[in-house]
């Protein structure tokens, strides 16, 4: 679809007056956003305006709208506008952005569920207010016909409300009963049904007590908890999916000299595959044509790019840096090294015992207890009153209503919502429901180096040692290459640049050009005729025969130092396990003050190290980004990976660091510990209310007023307690 159809409209007045079918067809899909970008850095009104106006100045963009709650921007644009055009624009105004796949977000589905819950919550809320109005009149002494009338009106409002609003509980209770389990929703449903039917009977018989307000209030508070829970999960789930959606499993196959794009599953051993500069190797293979350098950091943790020419062996997951490569496939799909690591992950995950959350543990003894209490109250009062069915059922319903887990259903969701909201604002996304509780128990933190503590991107270290004229030539040459060292050099230099012409890149070696009529080169030591230094460096050969070495070091992730220091200050053991060589690892460990470090670790060794710590009773938090960390991430008690990590690593981890900054890590641990404490407190508060109210109910002293008070007070206290989280 092209948008050229819009322009000639004015040429024909009739067409302009009556929009053609073509135009209508072109307008219809415009309602759906075509591009969705994640914006971890957006946080205020000014951010929204900056981002939206910046995007609207891009030609072809129809509209852009930021969703601050989800930290993303939906862009409606012409078909020829790609996310790659927009990301630099956003980077230009100071916002980090990642492309998301709107097809995989499945936002509509979770959205529908959320809106359904919100609708039920709203209906329950409005009914509750109206019934409460009538109930207060009854409690304050309405008599006979007036009371009966009020009860009837309450019934007319409450019964449809309970049927509509209670559905999530009825469905889930039925689902758990069918497999002979007593979930949290069984006593809830029983209380709702029992309270409504008894109240209806009492109203019909002209009785004094009706529990309509309790039934509706119960559904309101429980729906509130359910909605909070759902919202936290929905945000986390969609964001986790969107991150997983970043990579497309395709490869460019060479068939009879022409390029065909195929799914990775269709590639067989012996095929020829073309990998462009900047692309990731889709398969294991041997280079048959082309020279380049490959970045293995995600696979092995090595920070230096490695030369690749005909005959070199490359593995799936490595990144091709400078020149196009043609590979003869040696292993694809299941057999590739990528999959061997995925198998390690599967083993680690099966070894990990499933964590039972605090709420699950509470529910497992809570449900049977409530049922036993209610039934024994029924049995006792049947015996004590000599078979007064109406009175006994009333008592057991009161017990069910009062013990019903209003506070319990709110206690955990309210805390989790408050805590994950705080963490989200700090740039941490909780992917897994119990991750917060597990994070609270951590006593050992294991870091990966490349891409985690460092950005995996080099920065020049000795620019100031060279004469300015030399640097200007080097930067001018570097501007013609997309090699990471060259781009780092360009980024670091803010001054003038020499005029170098005829730039052309020799893949795998470097870049050369003409400066003042003579040849200059920037690249490998041997190619430039320079003596190699023992750190990461690129070399400049000038026409006068002199050579200059520009050295580089991996740049530290912003906040890494603060994060490590903060974690140590909290008394946690910090360990660095890297696949990189001993030199850079030791230098980094020294810089960050980490005493306990291991270099040259293979993926299986990393996982084994984590397993060993776990077997010694440690609760390990693993922070890593590479494929070589994946097994360790899956095996650790809880794991965090940066958004820049490979999707396999992000899938294996429980928490994703959305921005670049890592300094929020110690805060996250503090908040999680606080959250776990609040949850326990909330359980305590709910229990305290029950200890007071249940004996009253058992003795038959509970009135609808007492039930309403106990329910609302306990729910409000737990919500307020959750909000104390700082």
């Amino acid at each position, binding site marked *: 679809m092209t948008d050229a159809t*819009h322009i000639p409209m004015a040429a024909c007045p009739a067409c302009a007056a009556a929009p053609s079918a073509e135009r209508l067809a072109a307008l219809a899909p415009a309602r759906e956003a075509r591009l969705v970008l994640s914006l971890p850095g957006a946080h205020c*009104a000014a951010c*929204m*305006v900056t981002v939206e106006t910046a995007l609207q100045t891009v030609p072809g963009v129809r509209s852009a709208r930021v969703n601050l709650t989800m930290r993303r921007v939906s862009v409606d644009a012409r078909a020829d506008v790609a996310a790659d055009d927009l990301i630099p624009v956003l980077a230009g105004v100071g916002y980090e952005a990642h492309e998301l796949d709107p097809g995989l977000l499945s936002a509509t589905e979770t959205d529908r569920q959320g809106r359904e819950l919100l*609708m039920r919550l*709203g209906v329950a809320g409005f009914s509750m207010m*109206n019934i409460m109005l*009538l109930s207060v009149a009854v409690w304050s002494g309405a008599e006979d016909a*007036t009371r009966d009338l009020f009860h009837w009106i309450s019934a007319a409002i409450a019964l449809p409300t309970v049927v509509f609003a209670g559905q999530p509980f009825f469905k889930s209770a039925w689902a758990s009963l069918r497999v002979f389990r007593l979930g949290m929703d069984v006593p809830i449903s029983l209380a709702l049904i029992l309270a409504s039917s008894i109240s209806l009977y009492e109203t019909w018989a002209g009785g004094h007590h009706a529990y309509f307000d309790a039934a509706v209030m119960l559904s309101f508070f429980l729906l509130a908890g359910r909605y909070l829970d759902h919202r936290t999960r929905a945000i986390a789930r969609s964001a986790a999916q969107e991150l997983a959606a970043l990579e497309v499993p395709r490869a460019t196959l060479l068939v009879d000299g022409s390029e065909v794009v195929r799914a990775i599953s269709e590639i067989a051993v012996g095929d020829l595959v073309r990998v462009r500069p900047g692309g990731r190797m889709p398969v294991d293979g041997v280079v048959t044509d082309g020279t380049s350098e490959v970045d293995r950091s995600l696979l092995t943790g090595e920070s230096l790019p490695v030369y690749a020419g005909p005959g070199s062996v490359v593995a799936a997951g490595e990144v091709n840096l400078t020149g196009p490569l043609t590979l003869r496939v040696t292993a694809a799909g299941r057999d590739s090294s990528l999959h061997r690591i995925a198998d390690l992950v599967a083993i680690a995950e099966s070894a990990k015992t499933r964590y039972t959350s605090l709420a699950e543990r509470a529910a497992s003894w809570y449900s049977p207890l409530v049922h036993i209490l209610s039934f024994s109250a029924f049995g006792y009062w049947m015996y004590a009153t000599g078979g007064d069915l109406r009175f006994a059922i009333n008592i057991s319903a009161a017990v069910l209503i009062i013990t019903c887990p209003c506070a319990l259903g709110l206690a955990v969701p309210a805390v989790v919502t408050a805590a994950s909201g705080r963490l989200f604002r700090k740039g941490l996304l909780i992917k897994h429901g119990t991750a917060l509780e597990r994070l609270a128990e951590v006593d050992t933190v294991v870091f990966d180096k490349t891409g985690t503590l460092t950005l995996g991107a080099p920065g020049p270290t000795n620019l100031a040692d060279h004469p300015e004229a030399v640097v200007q030539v080097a930067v001018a040459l570097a501007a013609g290459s997309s090699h990471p060292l060259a781009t780092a050099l360009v980024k670091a230099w803010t001054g003038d640049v020499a005029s170098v012409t005829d730039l052309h890149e020799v893949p795998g070696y470097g870049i050369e050009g003409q400066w003042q009529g003579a040849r200059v080169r920037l690249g490998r030591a041997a190619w430039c005729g320079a003596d190699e230094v023992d750190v990461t460096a690129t070399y400049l050969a000038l026409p006068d025969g002199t050579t200059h070495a520009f050295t580089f070091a991996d740049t530290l992730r912003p906040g890494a130092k603060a994060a490590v220091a903060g974690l140590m200050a909290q008394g946690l053991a910090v360990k660095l396990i890297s696949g990189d060589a001993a030199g850079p690892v030791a230098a980094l460990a020294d810089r960050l003050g980490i005493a306990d470090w291991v270099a040259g670790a293979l993926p299986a060794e990393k996982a084994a190290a984590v397993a060993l710590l776990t077997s010694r009773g440690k609760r390990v938090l693993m922070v890593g980004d590479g494929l070589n960390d994946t097994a360790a991430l899956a095996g650790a008690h809880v794991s965090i990976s940066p958004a820049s990590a490979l999707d396999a690593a992000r899938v294996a981890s429980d928490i994703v660091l959305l921005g670049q900054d890592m300094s929020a890590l110690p805060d996250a641990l503090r908040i999680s510990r606080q959250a776990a404490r609040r949850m326990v407190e909330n359980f305590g508060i709910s229990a305290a209310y029950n200890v007071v109210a249940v004996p009253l109910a058992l003795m038959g002293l509970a009135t609808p007023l007492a039930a309403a008070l106990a329910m609302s007070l306990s729910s409000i206290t737990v919500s307020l307690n959750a909000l104390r989280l700082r």
Partner: protein
Amino acid sequence: MDILSILIPVSLFLGAVGLVAFVWTMKARQYDDPQGDASRILTNEWDDHPKPPLDGPRVPPETRR
């Protein structure tokens, strides 16, 4: 007590109006971005006018108030 026969229908009616308004806000998707909407009222940018035509002359955002 006769006043009740007026007040109760009135209160129920008002409750129903509130409920209808709530259902409308749900249908109009007003709860999709609560944080963004809260911030949006602080900006000078208009938000509820039709956008300028796609291929027409673009007005720089600073001048459209």
